[in-house]
């Protein structure tokens, strides 16, 4: 716990330095990046087979989410009414802590000793596993990646591939220890074997857990359903086998109708894994009906705000369109240099750099919006067209406006701006700067160490080409 706190308090810059030196992590990231990019590209190309096109779909998806956000309270009321009509209970949580408390209370009331979980990032926001464990209830992650991360005592480093930072050797060591067997040498060909091994262990948990906890990829207002998009089948086990099913999810996951859900489903799996559709798509509506052979006897929706409602009507409202596909991080040069843990909270990559400061009230990740090259590879692949670089820029602007940037940076910016507004003086200064740079450069025209830009020259030379600025040479030419 103490270690976790220290880790969170560290700034992005320091965490980044550690991650860059982690050779095992770097190897895992190098392998994963091209796969993610190629899969999405293939998935989007396949749209043409259905006579569809990315830009057209993305505009439709954006409209669906905007429609929900414009009247979120009304749609939430409708969802609550429809879900209750099907026998579900609907609870509301202001923040993660309240959500965790509600889950624990339900578990205690129902006499639960073990809860299986399918993937839920909101449960990470709520630090739910810690809350359950503290109440003597054992949480068992059943998504393979989450299972690995839980065994390692870590947090997910990616929202759809939580263990992407792990190598197969690390997974083998974790499994050998947990499953009480000797360590073997493994290659990627053994992944199916390792998955089978985990399944065998998890099956016992599926059958014995009294409670299943899932997130929801979408909530459907007209039917009061939760939609679950998974590939491993664990989601079905978690939501169908235990007596009690708790859905814990953010209030922004709502879509109006099943048809809207179908539109978004054209984009979600393709954006995430390149699949035209995921292996499993579950629509979970209410409790076990009369004559039904399976399904939970009790279904509880916990709809969590945790900083979301305050974004409505703010310059950051567009962030609430996010459907958590992970495409932004999969195409982010910064994410794939560091992995997700460098971002310090639940959500990594570009969407995390926007969400983390917003949802945590800037307690976490205040420097995240600065950790971007502005390349907009994220924005261009976003299936709901969130202008992620602009939202990060906007957060930077807020920090400048409220005086939360270092004085040295503010002063440098002001001085440079003052100068740029005065062309004659600017020419005088840049002429001297060009001479100075040229004097610093070696005989091949390179500066190898430059005190004014230490971070630049730590990794690269600064090429210098001329002792005279363009404008100096140009005026001389005009005079001649």
């Amino acid at each position, binding site marked *: 716990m103490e270690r976790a706190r220290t880790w969170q308090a560290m700034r992005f*810059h320091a965490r*980044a*330095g550690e991650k*860059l030196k982690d050779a095992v992590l770097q190897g895992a990231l190098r392998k994963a990046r091209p796969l993610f990019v190629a899969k999405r590209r293939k998935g989007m190309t396949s749209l043409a087979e259905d006579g569809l096109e990315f830009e057209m779909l993305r505009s439709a998806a954006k409209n669906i989410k905007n429609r929900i956000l414009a009247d979120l309270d009304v749609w939430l009321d409708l969802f609550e009414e429809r879900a209750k009509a099907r026998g579900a209970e609907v609870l509301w949580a202001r923040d993660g802590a309240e959500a965790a408390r509600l889950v624990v209370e339900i578990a205690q009331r129902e006499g639960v000793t073990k809860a299986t979980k399918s993937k839920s990032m909101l449960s990470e926001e709520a630090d739910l596993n810690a809350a359950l464990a503290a109440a003597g209830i054992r949480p068992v992650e059943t998504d393979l990646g989450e299972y690995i991360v839980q065994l390692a005592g870590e947090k997910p480093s990616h929202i759809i591939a939580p263990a992407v930072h792990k190598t197969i050797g690390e997974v083998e060591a974790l499994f050998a220890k947990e499953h009480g067997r000797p360590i073997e040498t493994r290659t990627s060909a053994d992944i199916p074997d390792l998955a089978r091994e985990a399944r065998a262990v998890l099956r016992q948990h599926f059958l014995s857990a009294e409670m299943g906890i899932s997130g929801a990829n979408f909530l459907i207002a007209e039917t009061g359903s939760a939609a679950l998009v998974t590939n491993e089948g664990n989601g079905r086990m978690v939501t169908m086998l235990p007596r009690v099913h708790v859905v814990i999810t953010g209030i922004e996951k709502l879509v109006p109708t099943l048809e809207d859900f179908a539109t978004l489903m054209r984009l979600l799996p393709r954006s995430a894994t390149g699949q035209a559709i995921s292996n499993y798509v579950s629509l979970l509506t209410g409790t076990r009906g009369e004559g039904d052979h399976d399904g939970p006897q009790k279904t509880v929706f916990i709809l969590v705000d945790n900083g979301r409602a305050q974004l409505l009507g703010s310059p950051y409202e567009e962030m609430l369109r996010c459907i958590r596909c992970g495409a932004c991080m999969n195409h982010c*040069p*910064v994410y794939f*240099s*560091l992995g997700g843990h460098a971002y310090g909270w639940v959500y990594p990559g570009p969407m995390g750099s926007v969400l983390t400061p917003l949802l945590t009230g800037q307690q976490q990740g205040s420097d995240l919006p*600065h*950790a*971007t*090259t*502005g*390349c*907009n*590879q994220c*924005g*261009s692949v976003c299936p709901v067209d969130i202008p992620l670089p602009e939202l990060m*820029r906007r*957060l*930077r*602007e807020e*920090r*400048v*406006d409220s005086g939360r*940037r270092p004085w040295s*940076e503010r002063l440098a*910016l*002001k001085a*440079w*701006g003052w*100068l*740029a*507004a005065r*062309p004659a003086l*600017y020419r005088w200064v*840049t002429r001297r*700067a*060009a001479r100075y*740079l040229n004097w610093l450069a070696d005989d*091949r025209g*390179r500066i190898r160490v430059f005190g004014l*830009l*230490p*971070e*630049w020259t*730590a*990794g*690269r*030379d*600064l*090429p210098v*080409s*001329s002792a*005279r*600025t*363009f*404008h100096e*040479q*140009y005026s001389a030419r005009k005079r001649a």
Partner: protein
Amino acid sequence: MRVALYVTCLVDLMRPSVGFAALRLLESAGAEVFVPEGQTCCGQPAWSAGDRSLAVDLARKAIAELEGYDYVVIPSGSCADHLRNVYPRLLADDPDWAPRAQGLAARAWELTGFLAEVAKGSVLPAEFAGTVTYHDSCKGLRGLGIKRQPRELLLKVPGLALTEMVDCEECCGFGGVFSVKFGEVSTQIVDRKCDAIAAAGADAVVGGDLGCLLNIEGRLRRRGDETTRVLHIAEVLAGGDEA
């Protein structure tokens, strides 16, 4: 055709030859070229850093000095994107300046876009013996749709062969202030670009934005690559080493 050349602050200070190459290209395209005297910086670094009022001041300054020309041409996708896509937004609520910002946005062109789409069929004086690989800079590519234009122009250069590197649209890690604030992360990103360039095996890597090129050249040299040339597309298209 009266054309204003906006050389950019980076070219002015770090690589004047790019400005002169752009000048020659525009003249060979039959334009009457002007270099407006007061130009300094378009203000993009201020906008990016989050200093809106400074960005607005510098936008007004640039708009005022770049009026009265048929076109404004910029040898940088990043600065051209700022003039075209950001100025109108920055000044949208200012009744006096909004139309002027929109006017400039409509006249502002990134160099290769201008040469390929406006000054079509102009005679390029260059020759280049060797293979080149083209790095698509982010703002030009994703902000302005600069993709086929530089390639079309390069393929017209006698002696030049174009070979594509893998992930040519991947960011090089420059990102302006990012590369001096998060230098280590930036180095990690530009290393992937350098690997792609090395694998392409070209004699030169060519791009349309000096920031990216300084980053790539600086890293290639630090890695010990002394031979791969790093050139702005204006330098390749204009040929020669004049200026």
